[in-house]
């Protein structure tokens, strides 16, 4: 397991507080999975908060919540708060992961197998 990496400068406290400021954490979180794909539907505008702007810039093409978390060096839980705001403002759309089923769809498994065999 790797050491957590930090992109935020040391000695800058309250970063997560800033990101999630004024957000009700439980009700405002987007229902997203680590592999929910996010696509920007808007350009960042003047005054867009930096975390939101960063997500909009990096999601010109589909990108998973896990990747957004990695590139922003923010915990997934903080990313979901940012995404909730973007979703509320219709600035991003999400492509939900294939729904959890007790047993996955045979066609899906076939596609996964074919994809792996091409590696």
């Amino acid at each position, binding site marked *: *397991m*790797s*050491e*957590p*990496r930090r*992109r*935020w*400068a040391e000695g*800058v406290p309250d970063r997560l507080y*800033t990101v999630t400021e004024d957000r009700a954490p439980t009700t405002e979180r987007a229902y997203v*999975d*680590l*592999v*929910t*794909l996010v*696509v920007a539907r808007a350009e960042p505008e003047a*005054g867009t*908060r*930096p975390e939101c*702007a*960063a997500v909009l*810039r*990096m999601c*010109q*093409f*589909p*990108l*998973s919540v*896990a*990747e957004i*978390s*990695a*590139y*922003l*060096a*923010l*915990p*997934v*839980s903080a990313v979901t708060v940012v995404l909730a705001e973007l979703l509320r403002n219709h600035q991003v759309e999400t*492509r*939900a*992961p*294939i*729904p*959890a089923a*007790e*047993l*996955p769809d*045979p066609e*899906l*498994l*076939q*596609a*996964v*197998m*074919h*994809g*792996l*065999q091409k*590696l």
Partner: protein
Amino acid sequence: MDYRSSEALLGPEPPAGPRGEDVLPPSVSAAVKVVIVGGFGVGKTTMVGSVSEIRPLTTEETMTRAGVGIDDLAGVEGKTETTVAMDFGRISLNDRLVLYLFGTPGQERFWFLWDGLFEGALGAVVLIDTRRLEVGFDVIGRLEERAVPFVVAVNAFPDAPVHPMAELRAAMDLPDSVPMIDCDARDRGSSRDTLLTLVRYLRSLIAVPPETP
């Protein structure tokens, strides 16, 4: 707050986001995930890296549950946050579907990560080091409890004792129905074959639904 100075905090690294070659095509519409679970140093990140089309990335989650029982929390009661990192990679399966591989530690104290991780996951690869079977033993029990389908892959470490599969299977109390394979996590083909073993096993579960007791 001053947004410009806040953005400056992101430097001196390049702007956050995927490199050009790491961008997914717009046609990608769905993602699936597989979890690789095992003890420290067993080769999870190595396996992720050997098959991933992107350089493995790290995502973090914050452990907030009280009484997790690792860090010395004396004097900081009520502040029980610990950050845990998970490495992951990605494989584009076709122009619509992408597979994410997450490596996650198997020790009990990290099981809090599992809720979001295994939800919707196709299944898991339990990566084993024959020198330290006990982590695998715990993980297998936990996966069985959660009804997550898994295969067991024995990572070939040069100095690890070689045990017959039957012996390892017995040592881990692994049912005969669960596939167990040798692998070399450093090798792309071997890691791919490990994932294929999992997918074939998942298909077999569909073909022959488990009997209800």
